[in-house]
């Protein structure tokens, strides 16, 4: 590339080089996509194969005939109940985190009060504590509070873990809104809670959506917290159920992978539609692990 060409190359040669380059980058992109997606597609293919085809050697890339027997089987083994649990916990965590996060973020963005700087450091500090080092202590705490093995306990923990990033996101968003609107409303006699509810929140929809998505992905995907804090079947969430299927079905990979694919579907669908909200949040916040 660096050798200088003093006479302009012929048109044909130029075209050929462009074509070679496009083909080359197409190949590289295909390899990258295959690397990222192969495990998922292979799992999907396996989950649709008839039982005896799953362990056939040499392995078949695609099922000879698509079957939903493994999906039927996990639904018979109450996967529906676990999906429901995951949905309830996720929805409750979103509501609670956004409510507390909007109030806290607004206080930080628009009010000067003693201890504000400390509150910011506290938020960043909590954001950087890795959950693993909290597991054992949290287990003891929940047992003291009587919240072990309850959905409420999970909701409260997810809220505590996601609040810092939600406050951070909303704080940034509130700062970007023009303050004059709020001042005008204050002059008209609105209380600060009414300003937040009637003026600020309706203007902050993109920020709220981004924040809700973090909480949703975290709560729907969480395995480590749920597997330590819950044990009974009635409160079990989907990831914990998949982990338990590993022992339950033993070496039967069909139902195991069917349950895994079920867990992925809402995440992949939501992510592809709402991608821009995710990426902005991944880089923000800086220290969250």
């Amino acid at each position: 590339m660096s050798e200088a060409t003093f006479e302009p190359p012929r048109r044909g040669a130029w075209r050929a080089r462009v074509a070679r380059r496009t083909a080359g980058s197409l190949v590289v992109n295909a390899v990258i996509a295959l690397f990222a997606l192969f495990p998922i597609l292979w799992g999907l293919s396996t989950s649709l194969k008839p039982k005896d085809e799953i362990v056939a050697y040499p392995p078949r890339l695609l099922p000879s005939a698509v079957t939903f027997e493994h999906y039927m089987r996990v639904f018979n083994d109450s996967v529906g109940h676990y999906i429901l649990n995951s949905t309830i916990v996720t929805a409750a965590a979103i509501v609670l985190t956004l409510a507390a996060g909007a109030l806290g973020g607004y206080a930080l963005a628009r009010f000067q009060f003693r201890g504000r700087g400390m509150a910011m450091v506290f938020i960043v500090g909590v954001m950087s504590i890795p959950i693993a080092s909290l597991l054992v202590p949290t287990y003891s705490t929940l047992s003291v509070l009587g919240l072990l093995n309850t959905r409420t306990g999970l909701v409260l923990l997810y809220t505590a873990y996601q609040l810092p990033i939600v406050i951070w996101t909303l704080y940034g968003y509130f700062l970007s809104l023009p303050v004059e609107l709020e001042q005008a409303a204050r002059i008209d006699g609105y209380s600060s809670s009414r300003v937040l509810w009637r003026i600020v929140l309706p203007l902050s929809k993109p920020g709220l959506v981004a924040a809700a998505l973090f909480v949703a992905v975290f709560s729907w995907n969480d395995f480590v917290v749920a597997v330590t804090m819950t044990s009974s079947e009635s409160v079990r969430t989907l990831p914990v159920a998949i982990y338990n299927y590993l022992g339950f079905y033993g070496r039967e990979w069909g139902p195991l992978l069917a349950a895994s694919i079920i867990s992925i579907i809402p995440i992949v669908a939501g992510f592809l539609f709402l991608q821009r909200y995710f990426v902005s949040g991944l880089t923000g916040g800086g220290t969250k692990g």
Partner: protein
Amino acid sequence: MRASDARSAYLMFLPVLIIEAALVVAPLIISGWYSLYNVRYFKIRGFVGFDNYWHILTSSSVLNSLFVTAIFSFGALIFTFTLGFALALWLQKDTATNVAMRAIVLIPYMIAMLVGSMLLKWIYARESGLSPMIFGAFGFGDVSILADPQLAMGGLVFNAMWRDSAFAMILLLAGLKSVPVQIFAAARVDGASRLYIFWRIVMPLLRIPILITVIRLLIHFINTLTFPLVLTGGGPANSTETLVLYMFRRGFQDSVLGEANALAILIFVGNMVFVAMLLLIFRKAQRL
């Protein structure tokens, strides 16, 4: 600033404070307290002072898991960072193709960690037929990846790379965005080679984003429980039992909660060292 304003600000911040105090700060305090007692199956059996800590620091299992954690973290860091950096450079320009490719690469990072490890466990499993086919082609025949200590560690590292290089890519892309494109163009016009541009221009300008990415990846890998728990359960012969997994087992399988809490406190303090480094870098970066 009216007094009522400050009061409403405190009221607004109160729910946050209560939740974090009860579920993040209180556990750490309780943990510090429990760590000084002999706690088995929820029953506090007596004050033991620093015995739990002494026991941990002299235990050969802890020493082994520290070693395993170090190998896994550095192995995962090197591969994840390198691939993430390559992806960031390759997908740097905001063309439609690159935006779509970034979304594809991010999918393994978005799905549940547990599910990702489950999918890879199926690929590693001998019954799936993939590993015998691939290893067979190299003449190794019948190898079971997760049953061999070294291959099992490789399997863990691959899981980390597959899932988290997209995370590294996103962090580094944000760093690359802050480098003015004209610099590259000017260097190219001056006849600099691609390698020269990479080592002498990109790397120095990206010093801070690179440091941040490395530390955040390290914190993440040191604290990862899901990969070893799902893929190997710590085996074969404890060769993949990381520190966090060892703590998890002591606490929740052996129910030796006093010792597990002491271990949790030590892991927490270790993490805080990395977090402090991160905060220092941020402050330094803001002053530049």
